């Protein structure tokens, strides 16, 4: 079993679904990353995923929690009260999924939490592959990465407004066409 106690900036170690999550302090993420890479051998950054937790556990966002009056029959997926998911420390999480290319393929999730407007140090210097991943997180979530060599939009147009994967970004869309009667 790997010992994560000496990871710099460690806030919490979680073990769920057989996966280890290391929550670290956002400003110290580069130190933690270096420690994980050099001391513990996590030389491979599989993925960098940002998540927006705006509205997490509040009614109407995921559309499954009922109104205080009970079930809302007009919304098919409402079921009365239900256990709320655990609160999240901040709005955005950034999960670095690390892998060590060695026997047993150990994986660990390095996670930092930030609020809207805060930035995270870039790990491009640790894993060059983070380049596009961080650009993607910036593009779709608006999380800025300090020290990134080229932080620009990657999937959306350069002049796009807003960050589409945020929960408060409207999905819009065209109404589906059906025949004219009614």
């Amino acid at each position: 079993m790997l010992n994560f106690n000496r990871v710099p900036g460690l806030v919490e170690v979680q073990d769920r679904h057989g996966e280890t999550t290391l929550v670290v302090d956002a400003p110290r993420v580069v130190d933690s990353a270096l420690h994980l890479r050099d001391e513990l051998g996590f030389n491979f950054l599989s993925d960098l995923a940002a998540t927006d937790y705006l509205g997490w556990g509040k009614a109407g966002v995921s559309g499954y929690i009922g109104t205080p009056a009970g079930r809302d029959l007009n919304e098919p997926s409402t079921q009365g009260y239900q256990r709320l998911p655990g609160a999240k420390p901040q709005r955005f999480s950034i999960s670095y999924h690390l892998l060590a290319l060695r026997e047993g393929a150990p994986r660990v999730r390095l996670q930092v939490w930030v609020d809207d407007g805060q930035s995270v140090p870039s790990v491009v210097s640790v894993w060059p592959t983070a380049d596009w991943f961080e650009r993607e997180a910036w593009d779709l979530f608006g999380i800025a990465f300090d020290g990134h060599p080229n932080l620009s939009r990657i999937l959306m147009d350069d002049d796009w407004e807003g960050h589409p994967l945020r929960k408060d970004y409207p999905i819009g869309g065209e109404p589906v066409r059906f025949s004219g009667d009614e």
Partner: protein
Amino acid sequence: MSPQPLDSLKGFAVTFRQLFKKPVTQQYPEYKRPVYPRFRGRHRLHVHENGLEKCVGCSLCAAACPADCIRVVAEENTPENRVSPGERYARIYEINMSRCIFCGYCELACPFDAITLGNEYEISEYSRDDLIYTKDMLLAEPMKKIPVADRELYDTPIPYYKEHS
């Protein structure tokens, strides 16, 4: 691995050999390969043998559709106007085929086997409006131009493992 001059010529033999083989291209509009029975093509609505529609307007297909391309408006059956054996029937049943992704979830969702995905795949049209299939079009007999491979062999009416394990 250094190249061998003669090995460079092996490719010529491969291409030359094909000259004497029958081409694999299917001459499509004239020849239609039989589709397998599980093929998911154009939708069909079904009727019971007594002429009543199987669809009872429960909208489960519309709820199941990941592309939101089905619209069902249900209405009560009355003794004068009995369309389906249930309480209600689908007064409007429309599928916007230009949105449909042919996942077959409607077929899975329908508890009465009223909607199935048939074997027709020739559903191109010149206008988007023509791709909105109304209930009459879906109820109509399919053109039956496309043959289907042996259903006994390529589909499983009874779970296979019950016999073979």
